[in-house]
């Protein structure tokens, strides 16, 4: 099976609060000096791809989009874990593309990579959490689409996948080609790379394609219909807010606070 996995490099989500800052000029998180990691669920997607390859054979191509020299690490880790080939689309500006724009570039890159059976990506990115890239890729590539997939099996004629749903799981039959977004599960913990593979990955060739060569494909060239006006850090006190009163009062206050936080 020919599998393409889309990987995004993001600032470490476990960054200490003190180091988290928004750059008002770009309206995005300040990345400089912060450790970068592969977006959490993208790693699960890569693991799923590698497990599928281990079971049914084929090829896994890792695809990233971002400024080169930075995206390099994600690609090398993907190669060390077992990806066969790597494509890095070089976006010199580095930040700021919304999901719809990224999906357009990735679509062009995937078309240029050529034939594929399956495209996998994380169900959401650890930073912008839009959850749109998978479905948009599916539409652009005229492929089947399922999101929040935790397990994949190959069957005659396609795939059987498990999708996480609000009320449990769905088992779906999916025809290829397909684009699936992946969520984490105890079966898809990302593997640790073997040291030999880390060292050979350093020497594996990575195709670098400047983004300008890819975007601007006709018909998809409209500007995104939304614009980021600002990104603000909400007021958060460091102290614990103790809810007063007896059990009934505390519970009432708690449920009110949870509703304010959109959790109830």
């Amino acid at each position, binding site marked *: 099976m020919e599998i393409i996995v889309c990987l995004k490099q993001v600032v*470490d989500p*476990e960054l*200490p*609060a*003190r*180091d988290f800052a928004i750059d008002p000029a770009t309206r995005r998180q300040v990345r400089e000096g912060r*450790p970068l*990691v592969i977006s959490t669920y993208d790693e699960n997607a890569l693991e799923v791809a590698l497990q599928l390859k281990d079971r049914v054979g084929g090829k896994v191509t890792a695809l990233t989009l971002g400024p080169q020299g930075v995206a390099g690490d994600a690609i090398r880790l993907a190669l060390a874990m077992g990806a066969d080939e790597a494509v890095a689309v070089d976006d010199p500006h580095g930040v700021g593309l919304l999901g719809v724009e990224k999906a357009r570039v990735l679509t062009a890159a995937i078309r240029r990579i050529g034939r594929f059976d399956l495209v996998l990506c994380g169900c959401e990115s650890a930073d912008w959490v839009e959850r749109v890239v998978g479905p948009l890729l599916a539409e652009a590539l005229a492929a089947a689409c399922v999101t929040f997939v935790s397990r994949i099996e190959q069957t005659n004629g396609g795939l059987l996948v498990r999708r996480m749903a609000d009320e449990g799981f769905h088992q779906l039959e999916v025809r290829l080609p397909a684009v699936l977004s992946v969520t984490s599960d105890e079966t898809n*913990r*990302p*593997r*640790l*790379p*073997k*040291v*030999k593979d*880390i*060292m050979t990955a350093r020497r594996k060739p990575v195709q670098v394609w400047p983004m300008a060569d890819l975007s601007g494909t006709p018909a998809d060239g409209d500007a995104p219909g939304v614009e980021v006006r600002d990104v603000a850090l909400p007021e958060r006190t460091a102290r614990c807010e103790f809810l007063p009163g007896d059990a009934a009062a505390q519970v009432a206050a708690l449920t009110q606070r949870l509703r304010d936080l959109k959790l109830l």
Partner: protein
Amino acid sequence: MEITLLRGAAVLLLLAVAAGIAVRKLLLIYRLIRLGSGPVPLAPIGVRLRDLVVQVLAHSKVLRRPASGILHFFIFWGFLVLLSTIVQAFGEAFVPGWTLPVVGAAPWFAFLQDVFIVLVLVGIGIALWLRLAVRPKRLAGQDPVGAYMILGLITGIMVTLLLSRGTAIVLDAPRWAAGAEVSRVVAGWFAGAARGTVGVVAAVSWWAHLLIILYFLTWIPEGKHLHLITLVPNILLRKARPRGALALLDVEHADRLGASRVEHFTWKDNLDVFACMECGRCTEVCPANSTGKELDPRRLHTDLRKQLTKVGPALLAGAGDVPRPALVGEVFSEAFLWQCLTCGACVEECPATNEHIDKIVEMRRHLAMEEARVPETMADALRSLEARGHPFRGAGLARDAWADGVAVKRLPAGERAEWLLWVGCAAALNERNHAPLQALVRLLQAARLDVGILGDEEACTGDPARRMGNEYLFQTLARQNIETLTGYGVTKIVTLCPHCYNTLRHEYPQLGGRYEVWHHTQLLARLIDEGRIKPGGAVASTITFHDPCYLGRHNGEYDAPRRVLGAIPGAKTVEMAQCRERSFCCGAGGGLYWLEDRVGQRVSHVRTSHVAATGAQVVATACPFCMLMLEDAAAATESTARPLDVAELLDRSLAEERH
């Protein structure tokens, strides 16, 4: 004369046969040892000779268990002294009544020999008492046939010797008889017997004596008694590395990373397994084993020896490979390998100076680097090390969060200081350890030391990665740190964490980083000695000190923390039964902080029971990992002894003074 020539020739022939058998077996063992890789740099000759004298001649380690020690001391020295009687016995094959020149005929010499015969028999008696009456657990794991065989053979040699001497006194009345008190007693048994009968007894016992010795010769290479031959070389070929340091592996160029087969160890490791006496003391002191886990340091050696003996000959004969159980996974289960705390209790105890930790880490290296198969939570720690330079997933603290509001220089901001305080991840990223850090800074500033920190530029020393077997990740982190330290021109380092201390001091030089490294208790002790810190008010508590494995056993520092505690007015110190070299690990070493302790009892809980047994109000620690483990265990076992760092206690004393 004719008879003796015949006899002499017969004995020589038997000796040749026996020696031939023995030598052939020993030669095979030598070649099996040489299957191992090299080179292995050796310790300085002075150290090796010293160990030979102290450990072999004076039996320093063996005597740690008094009963076993004494019996072995008697038998060992008996053997050396009674070599003279063996030589004499052989000599008599040619010349009846022959004795060694000069001393052989002297009564005092005969007395000496008799004394040692008795001591040997006493030793055997103690050995039988231990085996049959006391039955310590460590002896249960030995091969009983071998054990009783040796006791039997030695007894046989002594009995036949006494009979020979006794009958010789009756028959020949030699000059030495005057000193042979014990042999004369035996002679007395034959007082009334006919000369012919005595002659027969003499001949039989002499032949028996020789035959038993010759048999013994062929039997030495078989079991644990090979140590008679291999122990001295094992000590004389001691490895060069400081105890706490692991071997450097050239990851880029090595053919293989770690050991997955018995022939992957070094020749010194192989010599170890042939020098192992199966005494079981290592297993007895192992905190993992004594809390019910599978790990068994003795079995590590005996099983390696079995595998090497089984598989080695075919490999030597040129077979490409031999069907065999997988070393990692079957001979030693993965659980076995991941239970080692690298605490060094086994190495400390081993009378053969074997290095258990090295072998386990070699197998971990195979698992971690070649198979990338590591327990899940340890893998998380390794991933975190890779991504963010520390192993504490979910910590969410900045590395210098503890220093908010603390006036200490920061090197990344351009400041420079004489001393670098190396904070370490366990201290920086776990809030409980912030108080000791702040206390230490106050103390160093009270002594007017010029101290700075690296803040965010400090990455993990790499110790957890190295202990877990990921040598590659360790070297990556180490090189990064060495670059940072060199960039800032750091020469003097003080650290709160014994793991950092050990790695910075003994392992970074392997990669070119050489610094003067002090553990905080060492520096505090020195500052107190120099009068630069004057402890003040009383801290009225009974305190027991828990020796951290990486400060104590691995680095020989037991006194500095005690000197600091001793200088605190009002503090009453009490020692745990298992203290100093016998300290019991807190449970976090070897990367096991990141592995849940679910088999048997928790190591940290057992240690807390040791603390409780002293009745102390405070258990003083000198390691951030020990602190976390003991705090956790205290809460879980509802122990009343409070864990406090040595720096916190000293700081409290100074604070008392200020009020």
